[in-house]
C-alpha cells in the first residue's frame, strides 16, 4: 500500500475512535444533519418523481390539439371544419373529440365526460374511473343516474371500471358512447369539442402547427411539448419555492455546525495539544478534522437520502405531498415510480455538504493552530 493511502487510513481510524469517544455530542449533530438531508431529499425526490410521472403520462397524449376560438374563448368545432384543414404533410391521423365537464352535486365534484366510438362503449353503458367509482361506490353492472344540464334524468349501466393503472389520467373520467354524449349534453350535431392530431416526427410538430394557424386563423393549436414544458416549470418552481423556504433551515444548520465545531471542549483542546506535542503538524490536525467532517457528512447524507427514499416511494411523501401535488375532490391515488436522478443527487449533495464544510473550516483551523504548551499547562 502506498504510504499516502496508509496515512489516510490511520487518520480515519484515529478519527473514528475519537468520534466514538464523544458519542452524544456527535450523535446530536448527526441526527440534525440527517434530518436536514431527509427533508431536502424528500423534496427533490418527490418533485422529480412527479415530473417524470407527468412526462410519462403526457407521452401518450396527441401531439397537437386544435381548439377553435371565438372572441378569445374556447368554442365548439363547427361541421366541415375538419375538412377545411385538408391534408397536411406529416399528420398521421386527425379526429374530432367530444368531451365536457359535468358537475355532480352528490360529490361536489366535476367529472370529465368523454365520448368513445360505439365499438368501445355501447349506448346506455359507461366506463368510469377508479377514483369516481370509489367515491360513488360503483362496481361493474351497477346503474347510476345523472341529471343532465337540461334537467332530464339519464340512467347508465357501468360496463367497466377503468384500470387503476391509469388513475392519474382517469380519476374523474366517464366514458360513454357518442350518441349518449350528444343526447346528454344536447350537443349540436356535427360539432366537436376540439380536434386531436397525431404527428409522427417530433421535429415537424411546429411546422404542422404553423400550417394549421395559417389555414384556420380562428384556431389555437396546443402542442404536447408545450404542455410538458409547462408541467416541468411548474414543478421546478414549486421545488425552488420550497427550497428557498428551507434555505433558512440550511443556514440554521450551518450555524449549528459552526458552533459545534468551534466550541471545543477542554478535553478536545488537550487532545490536540498532545497530538501536536508528539509530533503532529498543523496540516495533520486539519486533515484529521476534515476527515471527521467528511465522515459525518457522508453518513448523514447516506442515511438521510435512504430515509427520504423510503418516505417518498413507500409512504407517499406524507410530509410534502400537499404542497407539491396540489389537491382536488376526486384526487387520483397513484404510486410513484421510483426515479432517482443524478442531477438531483448532485444538487442535494451540494446543498447539504457544501454549507457544512464551509461552516466548519474556520473552527477547524482555529483548533489546529493551538499551541501545545498553551493547552497542556
Amino acid at each position, binding site marked *: 500500500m502506498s504510504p499516502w493511502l496508509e496515512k489516510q487510513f490511520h487518520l480515519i481510524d484515529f478519527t473514528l475512535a475519537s468520534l466514538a469517544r464523544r458519542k452524544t455530542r456527535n450523535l446530536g449533530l448527526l441526527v440534525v444533519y440527517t434530518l436536514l438531508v431527509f427533508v431536502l431529499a424528500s423534496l*427533490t425526490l418527490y418533485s422529480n418523481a412527479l415530473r417524470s410521472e407527468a412526462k410519462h403520462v403526457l407521452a401518450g397524449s396527441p401531439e397537437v390539439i386544435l381548439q377553435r376560438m371565438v372572441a378569445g374563448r374556447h368554442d365548439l368545432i363547427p361541421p366541415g371544419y375538419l375538412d377545411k384543414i385538408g391534408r397536411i404533410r406529416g399528420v398521421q391521423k386527425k379526429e374530432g373529440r367530444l368531451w365536457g365537464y359535468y358537475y355532480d352535486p352528490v360529490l361536489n365534484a366535476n367529472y370529465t365526460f368523454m365520448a368513445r366510438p360505439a365499438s368501445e362503449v355501447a349506448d346506455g353503458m359507461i366506463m368510469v374511473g377508479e377514483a369516481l367509482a370509489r367515491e360513488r361506490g360503483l362496481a361493474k353492472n351497477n346503474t347510476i343516474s345523472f341529471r343532465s344540464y337540461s334537467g332530464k334524468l339519464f340512467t347508465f349501466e357501468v360496463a367497466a371500471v377503468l384500470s387503476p393503472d391509469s388513475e392519474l389520467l382517469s380519476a374523474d373520467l366517464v366514458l360513454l358512447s357518442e350518441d349518449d354524449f350528444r343526447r346528454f349534453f344536447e350537443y349540436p350535431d356535427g360539432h366537436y369539442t376540439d380536434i386531436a392530431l397525431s404527428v409522427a416526427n417530433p421535429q415537424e410538430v*411546429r411546422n404542422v402547427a404553423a400550417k394549421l394557424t395559417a389555414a384556420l386563423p380562428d384556431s389555437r393549436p396546443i402542442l404536447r*411539448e408545450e404542455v*410538458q*414544458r409547462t408541467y*416541468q*416549470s411548474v414543478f*421546478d*418552481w414549486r*421545488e*425552488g*419555492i420550497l*427550497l*428557498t423556504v428551507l434555505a433558512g433551515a440550511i443556514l440554521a444548520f450551518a450555524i449549528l455546525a459552526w458552533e459545534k465545531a468551534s466550541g471545543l471542549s477542554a478535553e478536545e483542546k488537550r487532545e490536540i495539544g498532545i497530538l501536536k506535542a508528539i509530533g503532529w503538524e*498543523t*496540516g495533520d490536525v*486539519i486533515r484529521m478534522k*476534515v476527515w471527521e467532517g467528511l465522515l459525518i457528512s457522508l453518513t448523514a447524507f447516506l442515511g438521510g437520502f435512504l430515509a427520504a427514499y423510503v418516505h417518498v416511494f413507500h409512504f407517499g411523501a406524507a410530509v410534502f405531498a400537499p404542497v407539491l401535488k396540489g389537491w382536488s375532490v376526486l384526487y387520483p391515488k397513484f404510486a410513484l415510480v421510483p426515479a432517482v436522478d*443524478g*442531477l*438531483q443527487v*448532485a*444538487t*442535494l449533495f*451540494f*446543498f447539504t455538504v*457544501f454549507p457544512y*464544510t*464551509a461552516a466548519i*473550516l*474556520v473552527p*477547524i*483551523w482555529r483548533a*489546529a*493552530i493551538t499551541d501545545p504548551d498553551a493547552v497542556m499547562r
Partner: protein
Amino acid sequence: MLFQPAIIALLLAAGLAVLMLLLATPFALQVIRRWDMASGSELQLILERRTYLFSTLVSFVLVVQLGALLLFVFNADRLAAMFVGAMCAVGTLNVNEWGFPALIAQMLVFFLAAAWLAINHVDTQARDYPLVRIKYGLLIVLLPFLAASFWLQFRYFSGLKANVITSCCGSMFSTEAESIAGDLSALPPLPAIWLFYSAMAVTTLLALWHWRRRGAVSGGLLALLSAAGFVVAMTGVLSFVSLYIYEHPHHHCPFCILKPEYDYRGYALYLPLFAATAAGLGAGAIQPFARVASLRAIVPRVSARLAALTAAGFLLFTVVATGFVLASNLILIEH
C-alpha cells in the same frame, strides 16, 4: 427562471468562491510583501498560521469549482426540455449570448484551479513553504477569472427566458456552419481518425516517458501536449466519435452524447479526458519550481504521479472512444 435548485447551487458556488478569494486577497498581499521565513517575528508567526486557513479555504473552493463544471453541463443538458428548439445542452447554452462564454469560463476556471491545486500540493509537501509568495500571487491572478465566471453565469442564468426560440445542435455543429465548431465537424473521418489516434498515442507515450524519467523538459512538454491532446480529442469527438455513437453520418453534437438516450456515454468520455488534461497541466505547472532546493525531490515525484494519471486518463479515453466506434452499427468508412 432562476428558481431551479441546480442553478441556485451553481450561483452559490461561484459567488462563494469569489467572496472567499476576495477575503483572501488582503492576506495574499500581506504574504507577498511581508513573508520572511528566516524571521521569528510575531507577524511571521501569524502569517504562517493563517496560510493553513487560507490554503484550506482556497483548496476547498477550487475543488468545488471542479465539481461545478460537471454540474453546469449536467444542468444545461437537463434544462433543454424547457426551451423551444433545444434538444440538448447546446440549445440551452444558446438561449442567450452568455451561455457558451459561461461554459468556456467554467472550463478555464477548472483547468486553472487544477494547476493551482497542483502547485499548492507541492508547496505543502516541502518543509519551508518555498512557493508561498508565488501561490498567493497566483491566487490574485485567479480572482478575475473566477469573478468573470461568476458574472457570466449570473448573466446567463438571469437571462434564461423560456419564450426564446433557440437553435439546436444540428445547426451549430453541421458541416456547413461557418464557425470553428463547424470546421472541426467538417473534418473528413479518415484524416480525423489518423490525427486522433496519433495525438492520443503521442500524448500517452510522453506521459509514460515523463512518469519514468521525470525530467523538467518532458514535464513542460507534457502540459503543452495535454492541452493540444485535449483539443484534438474534442475534434475527434466532433468529427467521428459522435457519429458512431449516434449511428448517424451527419449528427456531430458533442453534448447529445450526455443524454440518457445514449446511455450517458459522454460522461464516460469526458470524465477521463478532463481529468487527464488537468493532471497534465498540473504536471507542467509545477515544473518551473523543480530547481528550488527544498522541492528538488518533491516536484519530480508529484509530477510523475500526475503524469501517470494523464497517461491513464488519455488511455482510458481512447479505449472508451474506440469501444464506442467498434460497437457501433454505422459504417462511415468503407474498406
